[in-house]
């Protein structure tokens, strides 16, 4: 393997593992605020205990997110030095703002939220939880702002030596790409949090333990999940799709497996792209649906990959195609599962429907897959650019870090993260096993 491939795998592996944790904590932070609000409004200790249980799960995930997050910031410098040198003056702004505005807030008030419930009193504790939520969602904003700039660079000028100079701070923060990507991402986190909460609740109901808590968790999880899964599709998924259609048309063509431009382009539901023969094998399509979804006209022209020179094509079209289709397929299934559960909840029959509870419990891992597939779609879709249209991926790598050194640390991270994953599962399992009634 050449050095570039290893550096790319290094970032891809560490960021994929990292994002397992923030997607739960960002979603759960919102649901914790919901539980604390219910506690405050009803004065019922039940909701405080429920919140304390989820705070313990949150704390484990948060610690994992922190320790795996620091390597992300460092890797911009260690593995992508040329990129950092040219673009650091721009994306360093958003990364530094994340540290200054969100991490200080989040870490200070999480300490108070976890350790200071008695000292703070009910209202103070609610506020600490709210500020943890605010901090984590701000953190998401600054990270997505950083990525949005790499997807769609704005507010810069080029210096005499090709360095990228920030010219408008507000353009960076009000990047038209940013709004939909941010909302799509954060609601994706709510989907993960809602499915996790509903799944743990369903588990308690199925094993007939801590059933009052099980019912609360299922109710909150299903209501939040039903809303979030729909918002994932519309308007946020639709908005993000249009971002790509207008600003990264070769990416849209590759995601959809559309090799030839077409008026009235079909939407491929399944099929395998064969890049050499430039065709989609075994396709199952909805005629003209892609044209309609993109341009709201059934006969609109959609540009296929043949409309672009191959050196602007994403460099891993099958990965992009499959991750996109997995994301959309799962998203559709999530809407169905949550809609069904919400209907049964409304009719007051959900808690007795063991098959549906089984379905909710076993669904828990899939939002993680969906969110991960979404990010692979975004980042594989950005290729072959590191900064879209501005810097190609090979130009950004650290020139003096050899393939051997990079492989050494990649293997190190793989070993370390394998251990972390085992510990994480063990500790989360134990918390669920102890249940919300303990402590």
């Amino acid at each position, binding site marked *: 393997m050449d050095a570039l491939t290893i550096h790319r795998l290094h970032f891809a592996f560490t960021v994929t593992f990292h994002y397992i944790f923030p997607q739960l904590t960002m979603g759960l932070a919102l649901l914790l605020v919901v539980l604390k609000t219910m506690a405050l409004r009803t004065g019922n200790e039940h909701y405080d205990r429920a919140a304390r249980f989820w*705070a*313990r799960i949150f*704390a*484990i995930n948060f*610690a994992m997110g*922190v*320790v795996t997050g*620091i390597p992300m*910031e*460092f890797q*911009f*410098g*260690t*593995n992508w*030095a*040329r990129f*950092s*040198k*040219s*673009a*650091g*003056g*721009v994306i*360093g*702004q958003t*990364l*530094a*703002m*994340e*540290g*200054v*505005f969100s*991490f*200080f807030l989040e*870490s*200070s*008030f999480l*300490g108070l939220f*976890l*350790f200071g419930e*008695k*000292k703070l009193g009910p209202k103070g504790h609610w506020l600490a939880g709210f500020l943890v939520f605010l901090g984590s969602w701000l953190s998401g904003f600054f990270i997505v702002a950083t990525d949005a700039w790499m997807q769609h660079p704005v507010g810069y000028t080029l*210096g005499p030596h090709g360095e990228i*100079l*920030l010219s408008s*701070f507000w353009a960076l923060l009000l990047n038209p790409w940013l709004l939909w990507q941010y909302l799509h991402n954060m609601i994706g986190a709510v989907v993960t949090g809602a499915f996790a909460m509903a799944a743990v609740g369903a588990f308690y109901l199925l094993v007939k333990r801590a059933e009052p808590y099980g019912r609360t968790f299922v109710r909150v999880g299903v209501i939040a999940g039903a809303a979030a899964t729909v918002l994932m599709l519309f308007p946020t998924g639709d908005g993000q799709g249009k971002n790509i259609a207008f600003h990264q048309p070769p990416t849209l063509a590759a995601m959809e497996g559309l090799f030839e431009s077409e008026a009235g382009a079909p939407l491929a539901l399944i099929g395998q792209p064969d890049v050499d023969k430039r065709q989609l094998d075994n396709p199952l399509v909805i005629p003209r649906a892609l044209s309609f979804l993109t341009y709201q006209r059934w006969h609109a022209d959609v540009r296929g990959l043949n409309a672009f020179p191959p050196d602007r094509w994403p460099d891993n079209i099958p990965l992009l195609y499959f991750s996109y289709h997995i994301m959309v397929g799962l998203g559709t299934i999530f809407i169905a599962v949550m809609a069904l559960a919400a209907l049964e909840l409304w009719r007051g029959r959900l808690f007795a429907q063991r098959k549906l509870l089984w379905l909710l419990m076993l669904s828990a891992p899939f939002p993680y897959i969906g969110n991960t597939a979404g990010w692979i779609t975004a980042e594989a879709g950005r290729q072959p650019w590191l900064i879209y249209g501005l810097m190609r991926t090979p130009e950004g790598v*650290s*020139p*003096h*870090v*050899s393939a051997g*050194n990079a492989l*050494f*640390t990649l293997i*190190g991270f793989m070993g*370390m993260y394998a251990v*972390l994953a085992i*510990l994480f599962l063990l*500790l989360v399992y*134990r918390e669920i096993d102890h249940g919300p009634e303990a402590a």
Partner: protein
Amino acid sequence: METIWFMLVAVMIATYVVLDGFDLGAGIVHLLVARTDRERRQVLRSIGPVWDGNEVWLIAGGGTLYFAFPALYASSFSGFYLPLMMVLWLLILRGISIEFRNHIDSLVWKPFWDVVFGGASALLAIFFGAALGNVVRGVPLDPANEFFLPLWANFGTGREVGILDWYTMLVAVAAFATLTVHGALWVALKTDGELEQRARKVALTGWWSLLPLTAAITWCSFAIQPRLSASYGARPWGCVFPLLAVAGLIGMRAMRRRTVAPFLCSALYIVGMLTSAAFGLYPYVLPSNLDPALGLTVHNAAAAPYGLKVGLAWFIPGMVLATGYFVYTYRSFAGKVSLEEEGH
């Protein structure tokens, strides 16, 4: 403008070292001073609500360095690739050992994490010291301001250097001693009874090692990095920074019977030593050990003026807020640790 950001980044890094320094120091000393499970929990509880916030100073300081001096960030992080990756692994181990230790009550689980916590903290102190030594000594920057250092070469400070040589190892030992004392003073401040007494004893013993180490690194630094004498010669008022360090060092001993004062003196000593180094190197941020003309300075490493200017507009209010949270958090957890109100 570059100079303002140089000072701000220096303040961020110094704050990180003072704050996370006592977490690391507590990690180093806890196997030594805390003998029972209850005492170990007291030590962990003294840093439990704050260590994560303290580590944020590293993240925020790194982010600030990134946008204010992108060329320095790129060059130093890729050049110090291997030790930085090891620092990341150690930070991971340190973090999870604090968070995971108390989850399972077992005679195998807890001692394991205690040793991981102690070992990772000790190694981090050593790595940070070696990093400081490397920055003061300088690195073999090429005309593109890039370099790559092996972990060691021949342990000399000549043309062919590695991360570890006799000088950087000396600074590493000094950093280890400094943070050990700093952490011991924190533990003494936050605990009571025998635990407090043992921590005070470690701090006093450690203090005696700081005297020769401080003298040695000062002398060696001036011998290795000619820039230092040039800076202090040109701007003698800068001697206020080393004087701060000396004041801190004396204060630690003179006020050793008080509770909070020795810890604050230790913080003063750390700030004094770091600012002395920063002042001495200025305007260099990463000197070359081969040719002074190739060194990175605040001017050739800085981002464009527009970015630095708007940066100030959000950085100052942002840090005022962050300082507010810190004061509030530390006040909420002020006083000796009690194990009565356990967290989750």
